[in-house]
């Protein structure tokens, strides 16, 4: 089958997602969904003592939305918090490794939107506590 979009990597991550679980002790988590198509995603991020990340997700939806979440979680695991902070949107397309049409961009970027929102809420909460900057500085 010469179907680029549904090449093995994406199908593999869709059918055998990595890190698809609830992180009970997550530092922050965020839920987003795309009501028009029903893609649904919760991302859990745990910031470990050494400031590296553990990322997991739960959800359901199309192959693109779920495979991107799985690829993103795999990519971010054991990366530092700063790497998440500077993560560009393009990284998702790079991880998917295939051209994404306009009408599927929303599916592909659901994981990005979810983790960004979660991060922002977390940053906001910590900024007010004054801890957050210290944390970043210490990295």
């Amino acid at each position, binding site marked *: *089958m010469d*179907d680029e979009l549904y090449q093995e990597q994406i199908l593999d991550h869709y059918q055998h997602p990595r890190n698809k679980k609830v992180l009970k002790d997550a530092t922050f988590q965020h839920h987003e969904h795309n009501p028009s198509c*029903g893609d*649904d995603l919760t991302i859990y991020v745990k910031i470990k003592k050494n400031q590296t990340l553990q990322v997991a997700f739960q959800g359901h939806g199309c*192959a*693109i939305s779920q495979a991107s979440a799985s690829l993103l979680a795999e990519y971010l695991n054991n990366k530092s918090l700063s790497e998440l902070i500077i993560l560009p949107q393009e990284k998702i397309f790079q991880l998917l490794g295939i051209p994404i*049409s306009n009408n*599927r961009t929303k599916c592909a970027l659901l994981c990005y939107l979810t983790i960004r929102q979660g991060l922002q809420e977390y940053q906001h909460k910590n900024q007010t506590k004054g801890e957050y900057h210290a944390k970043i500085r210490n990295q």
Partner: protein
Amino acid sequence: MSKKTINNLRKEFPLLKRKINNKPLIYLDNAATTQKPNYVIKCLQEYYTKYNANVHRGLYTLSEQATIEYEHARSTIAQFLHAQPPEIIFTSGTTASLNMLARMLEHTINKDDEIVITIMEHHSNLVPWQELAKRKQAKLKFIALTKDLYLNMEEAAKLITTKTKILAFAYVSNVLGAIVPAQELINLAKKINPNIITIIDAAQAVPYFDINVKELNCDFLAFSGHKVMGPTGIGILYGKFSLLNSLPPVNFGGEMIKEVTQNDASWNELPYKLEPGTPNIADAIALGKAIEYLNQLPREKLLQDLHKLTKYTVEQLQTIPHLEILSNQYSPHPIITFSIKGIHPHDIAEILNRDNICIRAGTHCAMPLHKYLNIPATSRISLYYYNTIQEIDLLTKSLKKVVKIFQ
């Protein structure tokens, strides 16, 4: 209908001839919008090249001609629905008709009054009533479905009470293809509360079968032109003359007034009272043409064939592993909603698109229904008179490919 007749019919729809990547186009999203025949397309061209002018205003030939054609379209549509021309209001579509109606009826709703709709409604026949209920602290109630996905008439009889001021429902569900026994439901409602206002969302009914507002005895009915071979941006609100005449307008401007002073205004007669401003003249005329076109088709025979094609489609879909049909399998109506285990509708639609097959994926503007049926999102095929067995065979082949990719 012979193959030749269908082929001749298809020839009148230029878009159906389109090829993408050298493969023919297979258009199976007719519940979203239908394709347009030359008869309608040419009329738009003619309006803009020969008699584009404002209506009801100019004293010159062009304006007179535009006015005649615009009012002729109204008459054609009135006749089609078995109504009178002043009972036909041009709007921009079903959504606009229902929103306008909700505003017009606002003053009749008081705290604790009830508005009854069904769980199958398209958002456009749900949110306007939900908002009205919120503004007036009224109660919005939903009639549910039977196990085989028809409207539960027994429940309807219990839900509708003397406090129910409005009953609004889709004649045909755009997700399930279930046809509501409209006349029976209206009779039932009027028996419980003779003053109830009954409203039919006929967006999915008008393209397929005859509508007789006199027989249905509905107070209002709305539909969209683009779903019945007409252009986008034009639709109809039908209302009984006495009601349209007594209800207040909610949009104001030119043409809808009789007299204006610095402090007050009085309203023009029907239908102008409810059509303020320059109307969508070209598209209204073209909608008239679409109805004329529909009227001259051998509709009864075409509909019979469409029912057969629907049955054939259901049978073919049932040969696909892990495919579950979620719409009324035994309903002849050509809307088929399905899901395939383990494959999201977006992925199905995307892969079918590689073969130029157009189907709809998502929640079809009916989120409460999906929630009620406990399904996240679905795929939908909807057929029209010009679809063929060959197209269904290509669809089946393509769906088998989808299943294979995800195996």
